[in-house]
């Protein structure tokens, strides 16, 4: 039942893509969670939705856009949203979390308008919302590979700076770490990973892959580095098992992956009774 994934190109692509997302999402998620910004991924995924809807709408009217992968437009919206969030966080310096509901509702609002204009729900959109095993194309896969390489290189180069900034921003700034540039770079990475993940887990569930494995990992990890290892381990388990079972049971992979993550979290809570 597993071999079938290697017999069909599209299944192989979705498996590889899923595994790369399973690596990237918790990698960024750890930083988001410890900075108490877990909800940013929700805001960005909703703004990605409006980008997708916009692309689908344009596709109905202009043949050029019909051939274009809606992921690109989703990515553009997501990055735009990320920049806007950073701006809002500076404007409302004492209410930094306010940026999140603003972008989140704006994203849904714009998305719904575009969807209505495009004459409602279709099958394509359903896949974007909840993920699909079969939706991965070769171009999606290549895009994910480049994003993975970019994120991994950035992580290797700036891990210690992001770690310091997350733990103690003032101290990090005093020691000469360029806060604004690094925060900006980070949120762009989050935007890219979110829009790239939506094919598999779907827009509505993508944020779960950034937060749930991290929540479980924090019960087990004894250090910051271990938090990454556990989070990536849990997320890979959920993605791989989730994709296989989603395909064989013919259900949306997004939901399966999230449910597996919830199960891992419950087990972690039961086995590791430490207060955080």
């Amino acid at each position, binding site marked *: 039942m597993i071999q079938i994934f290697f017999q069909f190109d599209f299944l192989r692509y979705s498996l590889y893509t899923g595994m790369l997302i399973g690596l990237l999402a918790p990698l960024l998620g750890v930083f988001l969670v410890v900075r108490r910004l877990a909800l940013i991924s929700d805001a960005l995924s909703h703004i990605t939705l409006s980008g997708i809807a916009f692309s689908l709408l344009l596709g109905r009217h202009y043949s050029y856009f019909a051939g274009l992968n809606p992921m690109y437009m989703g990515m553009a919206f997501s990055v735009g949203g990320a920049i806007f969030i950073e701006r809002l966080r500076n404007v409302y310096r004492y209410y930094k979390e306010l940026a999140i509901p603003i972008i989140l509702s704006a994203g849904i609002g714009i998305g719904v308008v575009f969807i209505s204009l495009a004459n409602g729900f279709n099958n394509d959109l359903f896949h974007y919302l909840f993920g699909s095993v079969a939706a991965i194309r070769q171009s999606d896969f290549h895009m994910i590979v480049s994003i993975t390489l970019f994120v991994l290189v950035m992580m290797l180069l700036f891990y210690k700076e992001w770690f310091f900034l997350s733990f103690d921003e003032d101290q*990090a700034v005093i020691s000469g770490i360029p806060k604004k540039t690094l925060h900006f770079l980070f949120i762009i990475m989050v935007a890219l990973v979110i829009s790239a993940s939506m094919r598999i887990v779907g827009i509505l569930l993508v944020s779960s892959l950034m937060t749930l494995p991290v929540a479980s990992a924090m019960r087990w990890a004894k250090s910051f580095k271990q938090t990454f290892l556990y989070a990536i381990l849990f997320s890979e388990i959920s993605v791989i098992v989730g994709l296989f079972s989603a395909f064989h049971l013919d259900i949306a992979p997004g939901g399966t992956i999230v449910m597996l993550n919830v199960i891992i979290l419950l087990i972690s809570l039961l086995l590791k009774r430490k207060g955080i």
Partner: protein
Amino acid sequence: MTKASRSMAIEVEGLSFTYGQRNVLEDIHLHIPEGSFLGLMGPNGSGKSTLIKCILGLLSPTTGTIKLFGKPIQRFNDWSQVGFVSQKANSFNSGFPATVFEVVSMGLYGKVGLLRFLTKKHKQKVLESIQQVGMQDYVHQNIGELSGGQQQRVFIARALVSEPKLLILDEPTVGVDAKSVQNFYTMLQRLNVERGMTLILVTHDIGAMTEYITDVACLNKCLHFHGNKLEFESQHDSMMTSLYGHDVRVITHNHDHHDHDHDHDHDGSGH
């Protein structure tokens, strides 16, 4: 040795700071020679933390200049020479999943620089620094599982690991029990005496530390006093009145040894 001949760690000239309409600091002149242990005191809201933030380059003063080790702060770039332990260290995210080792390592990140990694030698330094504050048994412990006093020692270790020439501590003992506070001050005094490190300790309660420091500065929007400890103690009553608006006694701890200073009349010639 007169003060003028000593090289200065910090030179603040005519510094003022305004938040909106409100003057927080007015025309501050403050020269801190290298090797001194200054207690910077003042009531809550007197601008102590603002002054420190200016010195650390986190805030730009409205007017005035600051020099660190003789260099104007705008051109000062050797921030690994400056260690800082903030008040906020007591209220950091205690659920943060980081070990003592990882937290202390952060102190080297600025020195190591962008795009570089910690080497074995750096890691050895981190361990030494942890040992220096007596936390060697907790190297791989989660920072959130330690007591307030232990956490504070870890943050000191983090500030010390880059071997700074100047260490600034903003109310570092808030929420730390009395016994740990004493050990803590003794440790600071050792750094000051043995290593010649310049220390600035910000506090609203100078009484607990009078026996460890060498100099005192009193701040309440303006600088009311700056001089050595003995001068301060001889004028202390009038100083307290001008600073707090009413008479406040400074309670000195450990009266049983050497320190009966403010019972006697001092002319300050001993220092």
